[in-house]
């Protein structure tokens, strides 16, 4: 019987069926952060339970910490950080806190530490856990009650999802990145278009991406509602794993972590890679995007009163005039960071645009490397010098920062941000803040021009 990669992963982790129709699945590895885990630990205490297998968990501080220094900026965030450390100490769980050379955004840290290999099942109290699909591993986000469940049982109650294959075929044009590919998928499938589905990405445009690019794609799959995102493990995956094993104990499991050729998906979507242009979001949902060469929508072009009302609401919140060109949107802030786009590969792409250029007058530009290791690597490569010479503020500590503004990096009411992050929701980066999502190179382009700009208009330094 032919099976999809998703079904193989579920089958390999199924512990048993439950009488109510769910199953128990085994969690190989569980990651925690400081804001979605405290109530899970207190749940264990209330019920008098212990942690099933402490060595299978990792806790990383990333959401509330400041990135200017490694000291908590207020007592409330300090309480969260201290609480996580105390819980980890009590239960014997690995803890990468502030100042630890391995600290950073959880989904940047885990691959860096060699903690993900094909065939694994990884859970984390964070929706962007879909990132690990880039390695042919099944990763998904869970709530705090489920964090408690994993801690106590090393399993989750699980219902098998339907499968969707998204095929992106054909070579993309220069300037189009993994971020543009996934933004295009979100635009086509819609913000809730994959609710109830596990999505596998396939096609030559996906196969051609390095693992960092694949992580960007799988990371943002949650923005179309996918609870799981997968890309088959191949030689690129294998090469990326080389020398990255954590304690040297991992390797490919003796199975091909890819869908069988005859496997049938419940739904298939095909997108031509050649048609994808660099995209920007203009609205307040990640599927509200247009090519940088286009204009923001005109509400009266739409017949449905519901669609019209939604467009008008988004345009009003974003402070945009219907029909204005994307390139005419002026920005206040440029932000490069987040679990979507803060890896060394992302920083290199942005630096190519920034080399020899200056951030426009009046634009505040910030870059937050995804982890301490990423920062050190970037500094060794000279990227920090390029960012700083251009006028970017290079943050010394890693974290989620302005992606969700749980620390002190909060955009003010009306502030317009060109952002390499994953969500442009109302209030996401601060109450009244206006977020435009795009690739890191596009953020760099916006920073130097002062308005949204086409990365393809920039003559890049051709390195030999």
């Amino acid at each position: 019987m032919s099976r999809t990669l998703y079904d193989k992963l579920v089958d390999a982790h199924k512990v048993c069926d439950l009488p109510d129709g769910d199953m128990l699945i085994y969690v190989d590895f569980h990651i925690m952060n400081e804001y979605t885990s405290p109530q899970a630990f207190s749940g264990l205490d209330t019920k008098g339970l212990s942690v099933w297998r402490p060595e299978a968990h990792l806790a990383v501080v990333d959401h509330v910490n400041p990135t200017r220094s490694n000291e908590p900026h207020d007592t409330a965030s300090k309480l969260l950080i201290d609480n996580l450390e105390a819980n980890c100490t009590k239960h014997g769980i690995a803890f990468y806190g502030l100042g630890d050379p391995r600290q950073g955004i959880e989904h940047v840290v885990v691959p860096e530490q060699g903690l993900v290999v094909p065939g694994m099942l990884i859970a984390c109290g964070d929706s962007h856990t879909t990132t690990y699909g880039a390695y042919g591993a099944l990763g998904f986000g869970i709530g705090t009650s489920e964090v408690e469940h994993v801690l106590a049982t090393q399993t989750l109650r699980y219902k098998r999802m339907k499968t969707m294959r998204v095929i992106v075929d054909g070579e993309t044009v220069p300037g189009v990145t993994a971020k543009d590919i996934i933004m295009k998928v979100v635009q086509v499938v819609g913000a809730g278009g994959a609710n109830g589905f596990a999505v596998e990405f396939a096609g030559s445009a996906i196969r051609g991406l390095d693992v960092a690019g694949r992580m960007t794609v799988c990371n943002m799959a949650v923005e179309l509602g996918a609870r799981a995102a997968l890309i088959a493990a191949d030689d690129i995956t294998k090469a990326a794993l080389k020398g990255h094993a954590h304690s040297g104990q991992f390797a490919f499991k003796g199975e091909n972590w890819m869908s069988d050729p005859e496997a049938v998906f419940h739904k298939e979507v095909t997108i031509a890679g050649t048609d994808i242009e660099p995209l920007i979001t203009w609205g307040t949902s990640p599927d509200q995007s247009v090519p940088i060469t286009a204009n923001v929508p005109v509400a009266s072009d739409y017949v449905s009163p519901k669609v019209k009302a939604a467009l008008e609401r988004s345009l009003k919140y974003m402070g945009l005039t219907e029909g204005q060109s994307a390139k005419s949107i002026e920005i206040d802030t440029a932000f490069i960071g987040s679990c979507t786009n803060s890896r060394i590969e992302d920083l290199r792409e942005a630096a190519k645009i920034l080399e020899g250029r200056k951030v426009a007058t009046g634009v505040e530009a910030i870059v937050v490397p995804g982890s301490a290791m990423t920062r050190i690597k970037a500094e060794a490569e000279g990227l920090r010098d390029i960012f700083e010479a251009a006028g970017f503020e290079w943050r010394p500590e890693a974290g989620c920062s302005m992606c969700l503004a749980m620390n002190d990096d909060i955009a003010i009411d009306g502030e317009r941000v060109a952002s390499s992050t994953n969500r442009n929701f109302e209030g996401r980066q601060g109450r009244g803040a206006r977020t435009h999502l795009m690739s890191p190179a596009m953020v760099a382009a916006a920073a130097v021009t002062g308005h949204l700009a086409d990365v393809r208009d920039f003559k890049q330094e051709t390195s030999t």
Partner: protein
Amino acid sequence: MNKTIKGIAAPLPLSNVDTDVIMPKRFLITITREGLADGTFADLRFESSGQIQPDFVLNKAPWTQANILIVGDNFGCGSSREHAVWGMRQLGIDACIGTGFAGIFYDNARKNGLALPIVSTDTRDRLLQFANNSNGAEVTIDLAARKITTGEISASFEMDDATQTALIRGRDDTLDSLEYADAIHAFEANLDDKMRVSVRK
């Protein structure tokens, strides 16, 4: 949880209401589950000055008494924060009726006794219309029969068996699952060594 949820339904027709909107991040800096009622829909319910936003549906009679929401597509998308569900429960919301919900939000709801009946677009739109004009008429959600009734409307809804059972029985999943400890041990005994994670401290 009773098998039946009954009460006034408020219309909240916006699509893609995300968990950042349901529970803004400034309410997340906490180590308890309590005290989240005020944070729920805070940026919709209150002006930035703290004044009540009089046009928001939950601030208007009869919907100040609502314990059911009729919601737009893809409600609960975005972040995994269970705080969104805790807050809605603390605000007195027992159910949201919609055409589809984001996966993590759906699972979080089940763990906290928040029912999320899924109906067709047509039924949802009729319920929205009814809720808009209801003058406080009640909606009844029969979980066991998977049926919604109110006024002229009688419609069935979708809910998977495990979620239905969990909502009706209100059991503790963690304690229930520990009854399968033997099966978990047996699974672990067969685990490939290469998949046996041991994180360096």
